[in-house]
Each structure stands twice: as structure tokens, then as C-alpha cells.
């Protein structure tokens, strides 16, 4: 329901914007407001879940927590705020793609995204696309992809949101969002700064999280300008600068420190024609880290990659019910770092997406992609998807795909060990989804199967150092269910959202479950609103995970299952036509549960966060 509301919202804004620009074709709407319009249009046979901006506003501090409590994705977090990597449908961290306004931002060094280096302030929506997406989104979209989207609307408005929050462990957060537009020009800017001692107590011990402080600042600024009735120019920018201590384990302290600097800039020119809409994107991404083994010294190791990207895409109406979307893209990556010299990689890719809507009931998608990459051969990728509206309240979705994950700079060039003869990991998968929608209730049930070959694993070799090889083979299968119910009795609004996932992820040689993949994960969110007051309670269950390949249980072999509850209450203190003040209180780990997410790295005890938000 939330999803539907959001769609409606997006379409509404689009409509208003559209009225001022070209035709009123629905297709153009997304093109104007969204950079990644293909996400919606070419994913008919995929499960797509959307987290809207009101939810993002409430969970500024931790993107990891936001996804942990609202989706099926499991996170492995090395203590609160430390490195956090996802496992989507039992795949590993480098098999989940993170997409910023249509382009992949996974690290070229590790292949992963650390979810604690992303601040969600000023993203208008975050979409979770389950299943293989390498054809559209490139390397790493094996388990699924997570999309951070900014929309630029050209509806006249000028508003601001300032938020201040203070919480346990001296956690201070300040953010400011400003958005302005007229018919020709649209701009929105988001600034966020967070600083936390993060020195939570390790429950049942006399220890605390000694070396875990973090601070980070981010800027998210986007501009749009209507050049003519046919052309729109947009500029997207994101900066993240973070400084974190790396906490140790329960039995050993740490002095380590880590600095992140990420810059992302993209210029986009959209042109709208009668039968063809086209879009040209030019982007520069920079990732840069420094690791200090001892924060009290100036000795560090670093890694840095610049990515330059040119992407051209056209949306062509071949027939009224047949659309073609060819994409041509060129990426150039140049790296430098303490453990390798100055390697670079060139990548040219061609993609064709075909969508056939013969009638209201059926949607067919057929997509192929071929990359030409310096250094190794990339496989021909394909995907197909079908969506069938059986009835007004029942929809079937089926998709299948071949996906890949290319070797990273570390895999190829690390000295010693880097292996230039690696090939991309390849994966085949099938996903069957069923969606039931009845009145205010929706239920999505998906079953999936993923087989991945040539998995890259670092193992010690005969020469006495570690080296990556394409050795492992895994299969993942499981089922997911998502339910959403909203109910209203007079002024009382109730909503319930729940997710459950059963995931088997096995090494095909040993038939053992992979480490850090729980068989069971579930969460439930209950919200209630009445007049000026709203409250929510959210609960998470994460099953036991193994920490060694033998699948033994116990302190040294597994991390126990845990259940966690958060509670929050918001109150509109003041509401006028153009101004609003909200107060919010959130209690995390309400029952003071002792839990670990990664072995020997305790997570926070009960903690509080107080927030005041002023909109004008």
C-alpha cells in the first residue's frame, strides 16, 4: 500500500511537471523526475519495494538499521556504525549492487558498498529490487540491487526542513534540507552531519565500546534546468566524508581508524521527442580510504579509485505496445593505493532492453548485455521477465537471468597475490513472485533459486601468500514473504508491515550453509497515528549464523539468534499553513537485549534518541 501511495505521489508530481513541459504521455513523466526511469519501467516481473522519504527522515543515523528493520536483507555489521555489508538472498557482500540515480557505486576496490558510509538524508526514495539485475545495473547485481533516487520536480515550491537530534552515547545529528523550484529551475540541497562517541556499554560485562567513535558529513545537492520544451539538464552531486574509529572485539581493544571520502557527480541531459526520448549522462565518481592501524600515528595505507562514465540511453516506441531501450556505456577506472601501483580498467558495454505490453494483463521483458572489458572476458548476459495480472487482486511475476560480478582492483592487482587470470563470477537465477492486493492489504510471496559459479575466493597458495581464485560454487534458494496492511477507524490509522525470509545458501562442494547467512530472518513494523500523534514499534528476529564453514553451533562457531525491538513516538507540536514543528523520541533496543551481529562484537544496549524537526 505504501508503495502504491508512493507511486501515486510520484505520478502526481510528474503530472504537474509534465503539464508544463511536453506532452502528457505517462512515459515522459518518469523521465522528467527520475534519473533511473528504467527501474520502474523495465522491472515489471521483479519484486520492487520502495522506502519513501518520510521513513528515511526518521532513520537518519543508520542506513543499515533502516534496511535491517524494513526489508529482507541481512547485514553483517562489525559493531554499531562500523563496516556493514549486506547479504541479499544469501549472496555475499559484493553481490549486492548499490545504484545511485541509475549508476552503480559499489567500490571498485572491494566490490562492496559499506552501508555505514551512506547517509539517506535527501534521497526521495530508496527502492529495493530483488533478483538479478546485471543486464541493467552491471557487476554485482546478483542477489538484488538497492537504488538511491533523487527526484527533481518542477512544481513551484520553496521549503526547508531543519532537524536536530541528540541521543545516547553523545550522538549529535544536524541536518538541513532545502528545496526550491519554479517552472524552469529546480534545486534541492541536503546537508547532514553526525557525530557520536558510540561508547555503548557491553551488556553483562564491565567493558564498553572503547574505540568506536564516528563522525561524518554529507552533502547531497541536485539541480535541474529546463532548457527548452524538449530538453532538461540536470546535475546530481553527493559528497560523503567520514572519520571512524574501528572498534575491537570483546576481548581485544583496537586503536585502528578509517577515513572515507566519496564524491559523486553526474550531469544528465534529457531530450524528449515524439517517438524517442534520449538521455546522456556523464559522471565522475571518486572513492578514497585511509586506514590507520594505530590512530595515534600518521602511518596509514590507502586506496583510491576515480571512475569516469559516459552513458547514452534512448527510449524508443517501436510500436504502441513495444518499447526498445538501447544503452551504450563507457567506463574508465583508474586506481592507486598502498598495495598496488596505478592500475586502470576500461569497460565498454552495450545493452538492449525490450518491453512488450500486448494488453493490460501481460508485460514481457527481454534484455541482453555484452561488456568488453580490458583485462578479462565478460560473459553475454541476459534476462527475461513476465508479469501477468491474473485478476484485479492477483498478479504473477516471473524472471530469470544470467548475472555477473567482475574481479575487483584488489582481486586483480593486490601485491602480493593479485591474480590477473581471474574471470567474472557468473550466476543464473529464477524468481517466481505472486502478489495479492485486496482492499488495504497486500501480500508478496517470492521463491528464488540462484546458482553461482567461479566465485572468487582468497586462499593461501604455495608461495606463502594469499591469492584469489575462481574456485567456489554455491547455490541459494529460499522464500520471502512481505505483508502490508493499513486500516483506518475514524481518526485512528493503523499500519502493519512485515517481512520474512527463509534462505539456504550452500557451498556446493561441502553442502554446508555459508557463514553469516541466517536461515530465518523476520521483521515486523506496527504504526499507529491519531491526530497529531504517531507511534511505531518494530521488531526484528535474526536466526543463528555460522561463523566457521563446518556449521557447528556454539560460542566459537556461531552467533546466536536474537530478537530486537525499537519503539518511537512523534508529536506535531505546532502546525500552521506553512510551518510545522515535530518532536520525536526513539528508543532502540527497548528490552536491553544482549546481542551480537558479528562474533565477539557486542551491539548497543538500550539507547534513546530525541529529535526536533522544523519545516517551513
Amino acid at each position, binding site marked *: 500500500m505504501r508503495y502504491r501511495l508512493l507511486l501515486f505521489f510520484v505520478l502526481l508530481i510528474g503530472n504537474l511537471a509534465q503539464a508544463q513541459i511536453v506532452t502528457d504521455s505517462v512515459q515522459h513523466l518518469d523521465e522528467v523526475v527520475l534519473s533511473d526511469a528504467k527501474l520502474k519501467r523495465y522491472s515489471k516481473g521483479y519484486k520492487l519495494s520502495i522506502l519513501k522519504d518520510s521513513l528515511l527522515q526518521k532513520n537518519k543515523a543508520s542506513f543499515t538499521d533502516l534496511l535491517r528493520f524494513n526489508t529482507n536483507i541481512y547485514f553483517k555489521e562489525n559493531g554499531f556504525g562500523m563496516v556493514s555489508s549486506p547479504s541479499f538472498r544469501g549472496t555475499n557482500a559484493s553481490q549486492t549492487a548499490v545504484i545511485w540515480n541509475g549508476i552503480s557505486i559499489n567500490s571498485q576496490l572491494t566490490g562492496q558498498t559499506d552501508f555505514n558510509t551512506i547517509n539517506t538524508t535527501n534521497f526521495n526514495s530508496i527502492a529495493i529490487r530483488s533478483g538479478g539485475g546485471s543486464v541493467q545495473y552491471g557487476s554485482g547485481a546478483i542477489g538484488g540491487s538497492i537504488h538511491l533516487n533523487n527526484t527533481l520536480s518542477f512544481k513551484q515550491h520553496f521549503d526547508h526542513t531543519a532537524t536536530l537530534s541528540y541521543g545516547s552515547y553523545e550522538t549529535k545529528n544536524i541536518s538541513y534540507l532545502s528545496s526550491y523550484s519554479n517552472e524552469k529551475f529546480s534545486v534541492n540541497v541536503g546537508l547532514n552531519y553526525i557525530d557520536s562517541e558510540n561508547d555503548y556499554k557491553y551488556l553483562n560485562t564491565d567493558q564498553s565500546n572503547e574505540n568506536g567513535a564516528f563522525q561524518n558529513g554529507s552533502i547531497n545537492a541536485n539541480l535541474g534546468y529546463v532548457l527548452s520544451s524538449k530538453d532538461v539538464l540536470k546535475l546530481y552531486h553527493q559528497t560523503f566524508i567520514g572519520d571512524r574509529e574501528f572498534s*575491537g572485539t570483546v576481548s581485544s581493544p583496537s586503536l585502528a581508524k578509517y577515513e572515507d571520502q566519496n564524491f559523486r557527480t553526474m550531469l544528465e541531459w534529457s531530450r524528449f521527442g515524439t517517438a524517442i526520448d534520449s538521455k546522456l549522462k556523464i559522471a565522475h565518481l571518486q572513492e578514497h580510504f585511509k586506514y590507520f592501524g594505530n590512530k595515534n600515528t600518521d602511518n596509514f595505507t590507502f586506496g583510491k579509485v576515480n571512475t569516469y562514465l559516459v552513458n547514452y540511453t534512448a527510449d524508443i516506441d517501436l510500436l504502441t505496445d513495444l518499447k526498445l531501450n538501447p544503452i551504450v556505456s563507457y567506463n574508465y577506472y583508474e586506481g592507486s593505493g598502498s598495495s598496488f601501483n596505478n592500475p586502470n580498467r576500461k569497460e565498454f558495454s552495450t545493452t538492449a532492453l525490450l518491453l512488450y505490453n500486448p494488453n493490460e494483463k501481460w508485460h514481457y521483458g527481454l534484455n541482453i548485455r555484452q561488456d568488453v572489458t580490458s583485462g578479462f572476458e565478460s560473459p553475454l548476459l541476459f534476462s527475461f521477465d513476465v508479469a501477468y495480472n491474473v485478476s484485479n487482486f492477483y498478479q504473477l511475476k516471473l524472471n530469470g537471468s544470467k548475472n555477473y560480478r567482475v574481479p575487483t582492483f584488489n582481486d586483480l592487482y593486490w601485491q602480493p597475490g593479485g591474480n590477473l587470470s581471474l574471470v567474472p563470477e557468473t550466476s543464473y537465477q529464477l524468481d517466481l513472485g505472486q502478489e495479492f492486493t485486496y482492499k488495504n492489504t497486500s501480500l508478496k510471496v517470492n521463491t528464488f533459486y540462484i546458482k553461482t559459479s567461479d566465485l572468487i575466493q582468497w586462499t593461501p597458495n604455495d*608461495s606463502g601468500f594469499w591469492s584469489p581464485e575462481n574456485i567456489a560454487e554455491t547455490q541459494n534458494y529460499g522464500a520471502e514473504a512481505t505483508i502490508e496492511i493499513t486500516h483506518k477507524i475514524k481518526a485512528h490509522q493503523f499500519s502493519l508491515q512485515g517481512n520474512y525470509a527463509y534462505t539456504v545458501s550452500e557451498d556446493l562442494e561441502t553442502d554446508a550453509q555459508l557463514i553469516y547467512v541466517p536461515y530465518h530472518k523476520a521483521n515486523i513494523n506496527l504504526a499507529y497515528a491519531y491526530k497529531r500523534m504517531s507511534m511505531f514499534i518494530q521488531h526484528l528476529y535474526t536466526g543463528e549464523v555460522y561463523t566457521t564453514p563446518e556449521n557447528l553451533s556454539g560460542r566459537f562457531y556461531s552467533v546466536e539468534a536474537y530478537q530486537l525491538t525499537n519503539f518511537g513516538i512523534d508529536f506535531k507540536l505546532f502546525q500552521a499553513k506553512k510551518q510545522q514543528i515535530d518532536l520525536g523520541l526513539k528508543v532502540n533496543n527497548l528490552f536491553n537485549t544482549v546481542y551480537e551481529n558479528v562474533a565477539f562484537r557486542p551491539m548497543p544496549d538500550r539507547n534513546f534518541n530525541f529529535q526536533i524537526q522544523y519545516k517551513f
Partner: protein
Amino acid sequence: MKKIILSIFAMSLLIVSCSSDDDATPSEPLGAYEDGIIVSGEGGPSSISFISEDLMTSENQIYFNVNNEATGVYLQSLGFNDDKAYIVVDAGTITVVNRYTFEKLGTISTGLTTPRYIAFANGKGYITNWGDPYDETDDFVAVVDLTANTVISTIPVGNGPEQILAEDNVVYVSHKGAYTTNNIVSVINTSSDVLTTTITVNDNPDEMLVDDNGDLVVLSSGKPAWTGDETKAAITKIDMDTNTVSTTLEFSDGEHPELMTYLNGHLYYNLGSSILSITDDATAVTSIPLFTTAATTLYGMAAKDDRLYFADAVDYTSAGQLFIYDDTSYSLINSFNAPVVASKIYFN
């Protein structure tokens, strides 16, 4: 309330069992881990396993089982002195336990930076420290008061001090070179606690022992080929009266042994997971293996009473293995589960 009742019940049991102990004979055991083999693993999580001398019983995570807390990352080595064992963890703490019960007695937690190994001489403890591993000039040997468990002084030494061996009132330190490389053995006088001399050996000296001739034997693994500057590995014998090199037995290029042990006049070393041996009077090393161990990643080696012991780190994430071989037939006697990244073998 339930807890209180339980604890009263438990205490009463204790009293009953204590009172019955009064009748025990004087030869009661010193602890559950008195006679047997101790294997430590770097982890993570790091842990310590025990195997009884008759190889009939074994227990993993003994420190955790006794003290209900884990040993930290990374457990580098253990040292033994009288009835105490010292657990050296890279992160900077040394935990002192009763070597027979593994009950925690105390910690040495300040004054150490990246500690590696501990030795005992002249009533004091000597601990090698890398300092900041990226800094090649801050390395030291810490001198410890074993009663107070505090660092009483530090002796600056060359880069990357690794293993440490005490002989009478002198300690010898091999300098493997931390994150880089080194080629010296430091000699420290424990009466004055000063560095008396350094002895140059082949690159990357690590394992040390004293053979039946009374020579200090040092295994240098040399720089491997991937560094682009390969140097030869060597077994170096040092005359401890003059602190000079008496014999250097060099290996061929491409041969880089890392582990060494000594039993019944035979010096054993490894090439990969193969085991080779020479006698005290050998004039050259051999390249012909006696046998190949079952270890996937041979990571530790020790010998005692006609048996050779090998620690297997496997893939550095799975549970490690301990393999026990007969020292004459080279046949496998038994194998046991061991800690993750099993690395060191000791005897109680």
C-alpha cells in the same frame, strides 16, 4: 529469587565437595590440564585446545570454558614459567593463567604494543614488541616484573623482534622484521637489561632452538620470490660463548622453510607441508622430504617423546587440526580438532 536459591545450592555443593577434599591424598592433580598438549590458535576467534598426554581426551576453548571470556585477536603465542602460563595477544595484553587449571590470575595490559613472544630469565619476563608495525624504529623488548605483572623497563631493539629464547642469563631475539624484513639476532644481558650485541644472519630469522651441541640454531626463511628480491633461506648455528655464527647452511632459491623443531639429535624443518631433517653434524641442508604431513596449511611444529606434532591452519577460517606422527616410522598416530588458525604447540 531463583538465582539466589541456585547460588546457595551451588555454594553448598562447593562446601560439601571442599570438605570431602580434606581426605584427599597429597598427590592430587594440579589441574585438568596438567599432562598433555596445548595448542593455541590465532583466530579469530582465537582459542586454546588441550589434548591429554595419552591422547584419550581433548577439549577445545579451555580458557573460555574456565574463565567464561574469550582470548583476544590475535593470539600470537604462549609462554610458560613455573606454574604459570602467559597468553600473548597482538592487541596488547598478556593474560596470566595457572598453567594447569587455566584460571586467570591477572593481566599485563599497559606498556606493550603489538607483543609477539615472551621468555623468562633472571626472575624477569622478556616480551618482544613490534611497536607500531609501520614504524621500523620504535621496536622494543619489554622487561616485566613477574610478581607485579608490570613492565619495568624497555630495551630498544632493531625492527621486527619476533621469537625470544632464554639461555642462562642471556636472551636471544630473532628479528623477522614485522611488516618488512630484517636479518639480525639481538643478544640481551638480563643482569643489566641492555642490548649487548647483534648477530647478522640470513633474511627473516624466526624460529630458534638450542641443539644437543649447545649451539643456538636459527631458521631464516629468506625473502620469497614474489618480493622481487629473493634471498636464500638458511639454518644458522651460533656459538653462544662468543655470540658469533659458526655454521650457515643455505637453501636453494625457491626453498623457504618457516618452521623448525628438534628431537633426538635431529633438526626438523618444513618445505610447504613436507618435512625434512638433518643431523647436528650435517654440512648441508637436504631437499629430500622424509614424508608429507596431512596438513593443508602447515602452520606450527613441535616435537616431544618420539612424536612430531603439526598444527594445520587449514583455510584460516575453519577449525584447525593437530596431526601427531611417529618420529621414526613417520606414520600418523592421531589427529584432533584444534583452534581456528592453529599455530603453536606446547607441552604441559
